[in-house]
Each structure stands twice: as structure tokens, then as C-alpha cells.
């Protein structure tokens, strides 16, 4: 492949790729996302490969192994094109039937979606209840892309936004578009990405860095991994556009060392983007250059905290730094460093391609665009969901999630991962909005939605989440290290029926001091789940403590 030396060359390549592909020729997309992989989708994919080879169907049928489709509950997922027939829980034995049906333009009935109550069938993706209530703007391309093949991404218009930015917009215009789109950071805080970019851009130092925070590491949060593994080029394109706007010549993708497929895909994406002239020196002949390096964590959750992450990139232990200066002004090696989450970067190309006005047309008044949500817990359909901001939690749990498992009642939902909060069932008409969720004490945070049925023990939920955080704290500052450890001991005692009557006071003091006194966001928000428990489920805690005392 010769390097693309202009935006026009990229356009020509895309035309060329499309010309080589027959849009009417069916393609079978086998999901190899983390969940389907665990259900041995590899065996399904190889059964398809064998079937196609044995029947000599190479010219009539394409096979694509892709990233996560989203409906993890019903994996392995297979989507057969060109009209997106969805097959669920596919086994290698189903393969000949699916191949035969696909070639005839028909449907293999055994594996299409059937409503568990009414038996109504849903064949195409837009008819399946799990998908039909979603707005899949950034994850929706996953079934159409082999993440190891840059041409799949280019065929869908990929890198078009980068070409547009480099050839028709100044860095200031790009920044302005992102600011006008009011893109808020998807990594937790919901801080406006445009303002952050501007701070780094305006910082006096010539050397600036841009970083993808792909260090998703808590239980019940798995969508960044699906995004970055399934469509690495979209994230990379966003990063390159951001670097152009900010004036950075060097970028980092910081991610987990223990996700081999993710690492393989990101490495391949970087190599292919370089080969095609979309990364490196003089990108698309524009004069703008950017190098991007892949960097791995050292295995603890606090590595994802922005200043700890930057210390880790410097080669130091991942301890948050105590300085009262933002990393966007002084980050890696004290140079201005703009860090955004995987999902935030993935939103950038479409904002540039389709414009801020289009983007602000989606979502709620103060939270624009869509949000990826990892849906799990006692829900019928677990998986990765993308909905417009402002969608009620009820839609997520019932319309998309199919309600609570085993016909049980809903007790609570926990939103936002290990540092999120739990809301009682009577609050599920709340909408997915940064400010509204924060006010309720369950900030969007990591974007994990955990559904909890009527039998859930709320003491155990808080204990479980805290147990995770205690192990993932770096241990540098006292309130986080000691405060969480003491809270965990008290919660364990309450759960074991050994609670004491002053435990709630001790918990309240520890929670307050841990959140006021800790050095970084991990410590500051570590007691948020517990605070939400004391806000909405205090009765349950009091009853448990009282019952424990009587039992002694």
C-alpha cells in the first residue's frame, strides 16, 4: 500500500474499496467480543470458515470476525447481511443451516429472536427489542468491521472526518466545533471536552500530549473495551483530530496489559494507519504529523486516574500526584497533556463529519449525544447498549434489558461502577443525564448499570464494591488507604451479623473524611456507593445491625 498523500487519495481509495465489494453479496459477521469469545465464538467462526471452504462458496459469501455486537446475553452473536438478519446463541451445528439460508436470501428459523412470552419472532436487527430502542452511533459499526482490517473502516467513511479537518478546517475551527457540540467527557466527570482541549492548547509549552484513557478496570464496566477492541480506528481517528486541534505531536493510548485481543487490535490499527499515511509524518499530505504510542498499565485500577496514568507513562509507579495544577496544563513530564476516555474520542469523528448542530440535536438539554452503557446484573438481557442521553433508566432496564430475571421484582439499580451509587426502584424514571444522575447520588461515572432484584442484600453490595476498591487503591494517602479499609471491616461485620449500634456513625464519619480528604478521585468517590446506601437504604442497614445484635 502506498501512503495516502491527500484527502482526495483517501476518497479514491474508498471508492476503490467499494468498487471491489459487491453490496449484494452476503456477509456473515461473527462476534468475537469478550462475552461471545467466552462462549466459544471462535468455534462458530471456524465452522463457517470450513463450511465456506468445503462448499467452495468463497465467491458467494464473505465471512467477517468482528468486535462486540452488543447483545452479550445471547452470544455467540451472528449477523448475516446484507439485510442484517440476527442469529443468537449460535453453535457450530447451526452453521450449515445459516449458510444455506443466507445464500437463498432466507432465514434460519432456529436461531432468530423469539419473545420469551409471546413467541413473536424478530428477524432483522432493527426489530430485535434489545436493539430497537437504542441509538447506536458509535458502537453500531462493530458488526460491519473486522478490526484487523483498516479497509473495513475506510469503506464506511472512516478517516473522512480527519481528512475534512486537515484539508478544510483550521485547528481553531475543529476546537470550536467540539466546544459547540458540548461533548462532555465520558470517563466519569462529564467535564466539557472542548474546554479541556482549549486549556491544553493554550498552555504556553510547545510540547503537548494527547492521551486515550483506555484503562477500564472495574466490575460491571466493559463498554470501552468493546469499543476499542471492536473499532480501534474510530478512537484513533478521534485522537488524531484532537491532536490537530490542540497542537500535539505525540499521543498515547493507555490501556490494560491483560486484554490480549484488544492489544492485538490496537497494535494492528496503529501499524495500518501508519502504513496508509493516516498517522506519522505529514498525515494525508497536510503537513501535520503525529506519533502515537501504546502504553500498558501495571495492573491496578488507580492507574486509570489521570495523574497516576501520566506518572505511569513517565515510567513511575502509578500514584496520583498531590499538585494543585491540572494535568491539562502540566501532565506527562510536566507538559500540557489532554486526556480523554475511549468513548469521548470515539465521538469526535462524527462531530467533525456531521457537525455540532447535528450532535446537539441528540440527547438531553445539558448532556448531548449518546452514551454507552454496560448493562448487567439481574437483568434478562445483559450487554452493551448505546442510547441517547436523556433516556429514562426504565427504558434501559425494561425495554432494552427485558426486565428483571426469573420474574422477580426490581429492588434497585447501581449506576456508575465501583464508585457509583445505588438508586431504589422508585427512582428509575430518572434519565441518563450527567447532572441529574449526579444529583441523585449515582453519577454516570464508568457507565455500568447493574440491575438488582428484590432479594439483593444491599449491605453485601456496598461491601463487595468496597472490597474491590480497597485492593485497587495505591495506598499513598491515609483517608483512602485507612478509611476504606476500616469501612470494609465495619461492613463485613454488619454483613456477618456482628454490627454494632454505633457502626452507622463510624461509617458516616469515615465516608465524609475519605471523600473530603483523599488525594485523588478514587479515594474521593470511593465512599459514594456507601453514601447512596445510607441515603436510600438506611433502614435495611439499621435492621441488619439490630437483627445481628439479637442473634448474638
Amino acid at each position, binding site marked *: 500500500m502506498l501512503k495516502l498523500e491527500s484527502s482526495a487519495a483517501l476518497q479514491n481509495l474508498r471508492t476503490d474499496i467499494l468498487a471491489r465489494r459487491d453490496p449484494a453479496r452476503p456477509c456473515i459477521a461473527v462476534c468475537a467480543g469478550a462475552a461471545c469469545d467466552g462462549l466459544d465464538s471462535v468455534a462458530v467462526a471456524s465452522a463457517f470458515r470450513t463450511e465456506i471452504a468445503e462448499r467452495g462458496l468463497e465467491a458467494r459469501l464473505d465471512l467477517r470476525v468482528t468486535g462486540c455486537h452488543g447483545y452479550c446475553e445471547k452470544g455467540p452473536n451472528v449477523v448475516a447481511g446484507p439485510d442484517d438478519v440476527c442469529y443468537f446463541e449460535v453453535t457450530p451445528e447451526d452453521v450449515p443451516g445459516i449458510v444455506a439460508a443466507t445464500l437463498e436470501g432466507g432465514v434460519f428459523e432456529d436461531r432468530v429472536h423469539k419473545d420469551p412470552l409471546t413467541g413473536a419472532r424478530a428477524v432483522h436487527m432493527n426489530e430485535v427489542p434489545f436493539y430497537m430502542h437504542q441509538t447506536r452511533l458509535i458502537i453500531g459499526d462493530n458488526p460491519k468491521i473486522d478490526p484487523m482490517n483498516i479497509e473495513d473502516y475506510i469503506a464506511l467513511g472512516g478517516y473522512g472526518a480527519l481528512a475534512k479537518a486537515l484539508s478544510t478546517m483550521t485547528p481553531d475551527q475543529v476546537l470550536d466545533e467540539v466546544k459547540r457540540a458540548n461533548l462532555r467527557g465520558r470517563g466519569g466527570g462529564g467535564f466539557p471536552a472542548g474546554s479541556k482541549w482549549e486549556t491544553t492548547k493554550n498552555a504556553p509549552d510547545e510540547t503537548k500530549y494527547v492521551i486515550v484513557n483506555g484503562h477500564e478496570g472495574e466490575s460491571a464496566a466493559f463498554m470501552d473495551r468493546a469499543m476499542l477492541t471492536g473499532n480501534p480506528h474510530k478512537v484513533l481517528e478521534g485522537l488524531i483530530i484532537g491532536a490537530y486541534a490542540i497542537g500535539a505531536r505525540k499521543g498515547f493510548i493507555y490501556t490494560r496489559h491483560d486484554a490480549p485481543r484488544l492489544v492485538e487490535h490496537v497494535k494492528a490499527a496503529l501499524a495500518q494507519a501508519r502504513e496508509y499515511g493516516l498517522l506519522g509524518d505529514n498525515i494525508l499530505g497536510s503537513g501535520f504529523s503525529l506519533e502515537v504510542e501504546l502504553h500498558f498499565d501495571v495492573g*491496578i485500577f*488507580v492507574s486509570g486516574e489521570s495523574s497516576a496514568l501520566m506518572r505511569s507513562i513517565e515510567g513511575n*509507579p502509578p500514584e496520583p500526584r*498531590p*499538585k*494543585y495544577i491540572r494535568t491539562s496544563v502540566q501532565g506527562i513530564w510536566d507538559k500540557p497533556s489532554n486526556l480523554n476516555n475511549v468513548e469521548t474520542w470515539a465521538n469526535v469523528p462524527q462531530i467533525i463529519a456531521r457537525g455540532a448542530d447535528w450532535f446537539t440535536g441528540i440527547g438531553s438539554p445539558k448532556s448531548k449525544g449518546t452514551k454507552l452503557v454496560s448493562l448487567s446484573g439481574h437483568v434478562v438481557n445483559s450487554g452493551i447498549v448505546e442510547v441517547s442521553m436523556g433516556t429514562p433508566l426504565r427504558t434501559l432496564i425494561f425495554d432494552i434489558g427485558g426486565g428483571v430475571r426469573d420474574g422477580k421484582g426490581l429492588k434497585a439499580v447501581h449506576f456508575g461502577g465501583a464508585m457509583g451509587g445505588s438508586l431504589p426502584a422508585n427512582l428509575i424514571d430518572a434519565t441518563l443525564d450527567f447532572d441529574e444522575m449526579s444529583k441523585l447520588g449515582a453519577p454516570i461515572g464508568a457507565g455500568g448499570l447493574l440491575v438488582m432484584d428484590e432479594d439483593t442484600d444491599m449491605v453485601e453490595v456496598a461491601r463487595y464494591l468496597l472490597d474491590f476498591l*480497597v*485492593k*485497587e*487503591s*495505591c*495506598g*499513598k*494517602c*491515609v*483517608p483512602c*488507604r*485507612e*478509611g*476504606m*479499609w*476500616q469501612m470494609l*471491616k465495619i461492613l463485613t461485620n454488619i454483613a456477618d451479623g456482628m454490627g454494632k449500634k454505633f457502626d452507622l456513625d*463510624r461509617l458516616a*464519619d*469515615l465516608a*465524609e*473524611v475519605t471523600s*473530603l*480528604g*483523599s*488525594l485523588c478521585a478514587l479515594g474521593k468517590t470511593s465512599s459514594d456507593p456507601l453514601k447512596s446506601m445510607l441515603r436510600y437504604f438506611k433502614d435495611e442497614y439499621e435492621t441488619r445491625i439490630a437483627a445481628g445484635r439479637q442473634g448474638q
Partner: protein
Amino acid sequence: MSETILRIDGKEVSASPGMTVLDAARRAGIDVPTLCHHEKLEAYGGCRLCMVEVESRGKTSYVVSCTYPVEKDLVVRTRSERVDKIRRVIVEELMAHAPDAPELVRLAAEYGADRNRFEKEAIFCVMCGLCVRYCAEVKQEDAVGFIENGPRREISFIPERAAKVCWDCQECFAICPTSYAQAAYMLTEALAFPGRRKPDLAKKVFRVAKAAS
């Protein structure tokens, strides 16, 4: 460069550029408690005892004074109900490990901390990092470091380094608030490079004791 004027506990205090709120307070004779601070070492922000209440542009927040830079017209309160509570709980948390450390006993009296409030685990180290940082920054020897993370974090002398440099230094023993640095060193010596310590002193003590009886 010109001096910055700020208010600490109602008192007008002048500070030089680059100073922290802790520097300015101490220069004005206002006491702020610290455990991990040392004038020869880079600010660490680990113990969080020096936390103060600041008011800046109409917003009240809680910051650690050892790293917070002075700014013009900043209003600082080194004591308030909330500040005292933070310090009290931090002292109570640390007393779960080192209930008799003199500095903690003194702070407990000042802030009304209950040494028995939380479940104890006697590890005697408060993880202030003074030994680790003194060894790295002042002595540039790195003979002692942190290992593990979270509540499992501990200081550890590195036998190969300690065997070479600690015998003639031992300066970290004096700055340790709990004497744990010395204990950890002695354990390392006993396990990794014993035999250097002469038994003379023990024999002498034994003789004196015998003579007295």
C-alpha cells in the same frame, strides 16, 4: 518578585512566590499539624493532616496546605469544625496501627481522637514515607522503598542496598514518627546480613545487670 498577601486565621500574612500555604502559615507562627512533611523533602501530600479550609473566588474547599500554592487574597482557616473532624478521624485511623506513637498521642489529645475507635492491626508504620523519601532524595541511596499497594502497602529495606549503605547512615531512624523504620531495618539486618553487630554491648549489659543483682 513581590510578596503575596493572604489571610490565615484572620491574620494578614505575606508570602513569597512559590511558597505553599503551609510555609506561609508556619512563617507567621501558625501551627498546622503534619506527619509526612519534612523541609528537606519534596511535598508528598500523603498524610492529609495539614488539610485546611480555603476560600477563593467565593468558593470554600478543603485542600492540603503542604502542596497548595499561596495566591493573592486567599482566605485560609487552619481550624474549623470540619478541618478538626478530618484531622481527628485521620488520627483515629492511624492509631489503629500505632496507638502509642508520641506524635499521634499528642494530636489525639488536641483533636479529641479516640485511640480505640477503629479495629486495630498492629503494624506500627503510618506510611508517611519519610524514610523512603529521605533515603531517595537526600541520601540518594534508595535503600528503603514501598512495596505492595492499598492497605497492604509497607516499607521494605532492600537487603543488597541496605547491607552497603545503612550501617553508616541510619538517619531515617530519627525522622520516623513511630520507630518502625528502625525495627524494619533491624529485621532486614537480622535476616539478610547478620553477624555484623558485635555482641560486646549485650555482654556488657548482662555484666551490669549481674553486678546489680
